[in-house]
């Protein structure tokens, strides 16, 4: 298993919900899309690349062949998938510290959801219903969501400055360059390996291996 790909952590949670509450949940999700103010907390936390909720009942489980037995379930199920930055504890803690109301709103109707305000029962609820990822891939293992967003700022500003600076005098160029740097003063953090968030032997070893191998390749490339 591997819940980690560089700076991203893959969380999967599956929780039962009574079918008559499922539609309310869907309504809340619909409202969250319509009125994104509900997501201000999530946006401010800025720890998530992408996250999604999926709600399905037994008849909605994909059925591909006659010989495949049909699902028969008492409950409807909610699947949650998140790609976040940091450790499990950090993520779950940040959520509960910062936006407990938002979490409660999204999970409120699920069976035996303990509410997020006290930490330990919520931790237990998530852990209890979590499913480990076997293979996790990130196209930019050294980038947090913040870095992807910062990179876009850099690219836009850099391209613009390059265009605008062609006809400037040296003094104007200097002033423009200063403005460029000032505008990007929160976008220039270095992207290196993330601090280790798990002590699992495989991860420790793998992480070391991947970075060393690529550093070696890099050094070789420079020499060659």
């Amino acid at each position, binding site marked *: 298993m591997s819940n980690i790909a560089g700076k991203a952590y893959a969380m999967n949670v599956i929780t*039962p919900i009574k079918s008559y509450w499922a539609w309310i949940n869907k309504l809340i999700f619909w409202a969250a899309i319509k009125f994104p103010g509900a997501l201000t907390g999530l946006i401010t936390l800025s720890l998530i690349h992408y996250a999604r909720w999926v709600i399905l009942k037994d008849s909605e489980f*994909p059925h591909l062949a006659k010989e495949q037995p049909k699902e028969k379930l008492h409950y409807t199920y909610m699947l949650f998938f998140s790609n976040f930055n940091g450790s499990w504890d950090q993520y779950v803690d940040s959520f509960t510290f910062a936006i407990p109301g938002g979490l409660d709103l999204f999970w409120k109707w699920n069976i035996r959801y303990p509410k997020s305000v006290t930490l330990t029962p919520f931790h237990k609820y998530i852990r209890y219903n979590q499913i480990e990822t076997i293979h996790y891939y990130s196209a930019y293992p050294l980038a947090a969501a913040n870095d992807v967003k910062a990179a876009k700022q850099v690219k836009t500003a850099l*391209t613009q400055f390059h265009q605008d600076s062609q006809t400037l005098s040296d003094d104007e160029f200097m002033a423009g360059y200063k403005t460029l740097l000032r505008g990007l003063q929160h976008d220039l953090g270095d992207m290196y390996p993330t601090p280790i968030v798990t002590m699992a032997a495989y991860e420790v070893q793998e992480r070391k291996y991947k970075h060393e191998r690529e550093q070696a390749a890099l050094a070789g490339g420079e020499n060659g």
Partner: protein
Amino acid sequence: MAKRNPNISGNAYALTILAPIKNGYTEEQIAYADIVRCRLQDWNNQDYSPMTQVPQTYLCRYYVLDDVYTESLPGADPRSRWLDLLTALPFGGIGNKLRVGMLPKEDHLQSRYLVFSCNFHGGPEGDLDGYLRGMWQAISGQIKDIWGFCYGFEEVDNADKFIAYMKKCQLPAALFFVGSNDDPLPEQLKALYLKQEFANFAVANQGLDAAALRANFKAFIERVQPNDVNGPTWPAGKYTV
């Protein structure tokens, strides 16, 4: 007005696949679902994930859903409190019956499912076909390796059939949250490359006079080619440029 596609947010697409794995096992007494898991685990030991070759993939994951969970942890169901009270009364027998009836029911899945959850750049129209076609073209061998034990996959031997199959296994998102940006992956990777390179440039050229700075900046732009996503960039899935 066209119905909103719940899997699309801006230009990002949330693909959720649940593919039922056949209930069976090999001569070595390894269940098909466990073979799928082993093969996916082996991907972790390769230098790079096969998914690096699939265009426009931001982040994706695979896992096997063995079963659903029965909720036995104490929760915040207010009704159970009243029923707990009932059991303390003389007619506790009824209360107890009701209370046990209130306990979460036990559900079990009939099949185990291969879950593939993927976030990719699909454009405003959510070009799922294009993405899946790209996936088939890049890693059809690995796809067959992983999906080969799923119900109904026997027929899949080309991109069109793969697309059709995946759509049958697809589930719609109830909510898709994009906390990053939704540019095409090559754009994102190029931007990350520029961010890292420009940070280095800013450090190396701090304190120079305008003329020298200008000359170095010109050389820098020529080297990094900001507008060329095919030029120097951060390769997908790699730990260093």
